[in-house]
């Protein structure tokens, strides 16, 4: 589906100055943008949610393109492991709030851009108030609860939501604009349970991937502002950086969508942590844990313990755990016969999140022996027991 009209009303548009004409001359020479399009960019207000991997190229390219007002929302500080992909931040910015670091970089790139920083987590309480002032929202978040929050707020306020999402080598992009096509809930009515899909901090992500997907988002933002072209409304773009393949799928509006369908049941923002299962209402049996130091004491005392490393070989090589038996998570239940249920079994991964799933899978498969989770994983072992190992 294409959308030909600019979402910026003509009465908000001002003429460009001569300096601006010089600066944006390569845009002005494109008949599809021209003076009208550049004036629309100058009048536009875009909110970028998240200044991480996707937010970095979004903010840089939109600032360079002359978007007049850029809002940026983030509550995080810059960490060293962000710098592999979040190119708006620099080494000297480590420990600074991401919005402050991003604002400085935007200002040095284009001092004419008005930057509004929201150094906060986007929540059901503040989302409508923050988003209301903008024309377009670009979703560069890294979690399901904020994605559903951004989607719902955009549907309720009638704003387009330029969507991008990444995992390892794979990206998705679309434009969710309920007035013209489907929303995120039409595609995914509900999120996966927490932890089912490993996060980038556990599963890894190719540094340039958010660069590519975020740039696609920036491109879609610009077309919505300028008008014309073919937008990603009603289309889902899949990108695989390893195979170097783009695939395109059709997306339709779901008439039964709870927020943008024919008979919506959601009329206001909800509790997204609960919706995403982060506050389970039925109490699941907690998994028993063991601290790194306690495990060390038991091993030193000669206790017989089966230690199971659920990481794949390439990840074990980063910080190997001596004496552990490797059984990757994906093979756990089919190798249930290799366990001795008379001995305690301790499961470990990087930070002790995926190992919980190994334990749950064995419990569900009917394993009767004692299963323990190494609290905070191999990183805790490296921190508290064996300082010669790296934390990653």
């Amino acid at each position, binding site marked *: 589906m294409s959308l030909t009209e600019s979402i910026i009303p003509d009465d908000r548009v001002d003429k460009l100055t001569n300096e601006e004409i010089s600066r944006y001359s390569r845009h002005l020479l494109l008949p599809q943008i021209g003076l009208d399009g550049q004036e629309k960019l100058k009048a536009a207000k875009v909110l970028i949610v998240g200044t991480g991997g996707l937010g970095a190229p979004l903010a840089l390219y939109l600032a360079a393109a002359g978007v007049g007002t850029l809002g940026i929302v983030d509550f995080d500080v810059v960490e060293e492991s962000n710098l592999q992909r979040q190119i708006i931040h620099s080494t000297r910015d480590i420990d600074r709030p991401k919005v402050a670091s991003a604002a400085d970089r935007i200002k040095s790139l284009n001092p004419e851009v008005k930057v509004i920083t929201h150094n906060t987590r986007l929540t059901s309480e503040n989302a409508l108030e923050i988003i209301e002032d903008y024309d377009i929202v670009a979703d560069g978040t890294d979690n399901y609860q904020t994605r559903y929050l951004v989607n719902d707020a955009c549907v309720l306020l009638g704003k387009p939501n330029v969507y991008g999402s990444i995992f390892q080598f794979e990206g998705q992009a679309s434009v969710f604009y309920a007035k013209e096509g489907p929303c995120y809930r039409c595609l995914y009515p509900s*999120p996966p349970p927490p932890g089912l899909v490993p996060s980038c901090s556990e599963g890894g992500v190719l540094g340039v991937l958010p660069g590519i997907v975020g740039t696609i988002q920036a491109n879609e933002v610009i077309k919505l502002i300028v008008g014309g072209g073919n937008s990603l409304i009603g289309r889902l773009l899949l990108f695989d950086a390893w*195979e170097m393949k783009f695939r395109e799928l059709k997306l339709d509006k*779901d008439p039964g969508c709870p927020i943008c369908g024919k008979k919506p049941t959601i009329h206001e923002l909800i509790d997204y942590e609960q919706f995403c299962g982060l506050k389970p209402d039925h109490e699941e049996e907690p998994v028993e844990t063991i601290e790194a130091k306690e495990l060390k004491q038991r091993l030193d005392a000669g206790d017989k313990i089966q230690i199971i490393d659920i990481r794949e070989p390439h990840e074990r090589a980063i910080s190997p755990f001596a004496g552990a038996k490797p059984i990757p998570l994906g093979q756990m239940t*089919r190798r249930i016969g290799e366990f001795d249920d008379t001995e305690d079994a301790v499961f470990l991964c990087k930070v002790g999140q995926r190992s919980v799933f190994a334990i749950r899978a064995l419990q569900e498969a009917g394993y009767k022996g004692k299963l323990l989770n190494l609290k905070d994983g191999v990183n805790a072992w490296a921190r508290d027991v064996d300082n010669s190992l790296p934390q990653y």
Partner: protein
Amino acid sequence: MAKVLIPTALRAFTDGSSEVEGAGKTAGEVITAVTESYPEIQKHLFDEEGKLRSYVNVFIGDENIRNLGGLDAPVHEGDVVTLVPAIAGGRP
């Protein structure tokens, strides 16, 4: 035989394969054939009642099976079936 494209997020359950084959005349049969070859993927695609999970979409070619009759959607020789789960990025 239909070609089934496995997204990165589910490749841990297909021994790393990005592409597998499944025999069947409907989307449901093809995916079930995949779960028979790779049992660990089953619970990521179907709930306890055998319904497709709400965070996984299945496409035949570029059409969502929702518009083609759901799991009964016909699959023809040579069709490409794509599994598209929700991905979020960073935090769990």
